[in-house]
C-alpha cells in the first residue's frame, strides 16, 4: 500500500495533480449549485418585493 502512495517516486507530482483536479471539480460542483441557489433566492426576493404594495 505504501508503494502505491509512493507512486514510484513521483508522489510529489501525482498526488498534488490529483488533489488539484479533484479540488477544482469539487469546487465547480459547489459553485454551480450555489449559483443556482443564488438565482432562486434572488427571484424569490423579487417576488416578495412585487407582492408588497
Amino acid at each position, binding site marked *: 500500500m505504501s508503494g502505491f502512495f509512493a507512486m514510484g517516486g513521483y508522489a510529489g507530482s501525482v498526488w498534488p495533480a490529483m488533489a488539484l483536479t479533484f479540488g477544482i471539480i469539487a469546487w*465547480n460542483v459547489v459553485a454551480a449549485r450555489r449559483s443556482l441557489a443564488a438565482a432562486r433566492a434572488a427571484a424569490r426576493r423579487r417576488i416578495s418585493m412585487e407582492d408588497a404594495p
Partner: protein
Amino acid sequence: MDWTWFHRFGSPPHLYGLARRLTPWFAWPAALLIAIGLYGGLVLAPPDYQQGDGFRIIYVHAPSAWLSLMAYTWMAVAAAIGLVWRMKAAHAAAASCAPIGAWFTVAALGTGMLWGKPMWGTYWAWDPRLTAELVLLFLYLGYIGLRSAIEDPQRADRTSAVLAIVGVVNVPIVRYSVEWWNSIHQAPSVMKFGKPSISWPMLTPLLIMFIGFTLLFVALLLVRLRGEILRRERRAQWVAEVVTE
C-alpha cells in the same frame, strides 16, 4: 423547414425543466466513470516504461485540457446563436460555459506544470501548446471580466458574445502562430512533448476519463444554465411558479 422545435427548445421554461430533469442522468454516470477511470489509471494501468508512475497524471491532465478547449468552443457557438437569433437561453448557456471552462483551464495548466517538473525539470516552458493554453486562460478571464463588469444582463450577454466570437477566431490563429514561432527558434529538445506510446491497459482508463469529464461538464453546465435562465427570466410568471413551489 419547420423551426418550431428550435424555438420550443430555446424557450426558457422548457429548457429549465429539461435541464432539471437531465442533470442526474449526466451527474451520476460522470461520477461513476471518473471513479472507474481513476481506479484504472492509478491502480490497474502498468507504469510507463519511460516515465514510471509519473505518467499517471495524464488521467486528469488530458481530460482537463480537452474540457478547457471544448468549453470554449461551446461557449462561442452558444454566443453566436444568441447573438444571431436573439435567443436568451443560448446566452445563458454561453455564460454558464465560461467559469467551468476557465477552471478546467487552470486544472490543465496546474497538472501540466506538476507533470512538467519531473519530466522536463521545470514547471514552465514556452512550448506552443502551453503558451496557447495560457492565452486561452487570458481569454476566459477577459470574457468573465467583461461580463461581470456590465450590470445589465442583456447588455452583458450581447457584449460578451461579440468577444467570444472574436476569440474563437483567434484560438486557432494563436495555436498556429505559436507553433511557427517556436519552430523558428530551436527549443531545447527535453521540452518536446513525447507522445507516450500508449497501450490498451493505459488507454482504456484514459478514454473512460474523457467520457466521464465530458459528462461532468454537461452536468455542471445544466445546473449553471438553470441559474442563468432564472436570472434572465426573473420577470416572467413561470419563474414565480418554479421558485415558490
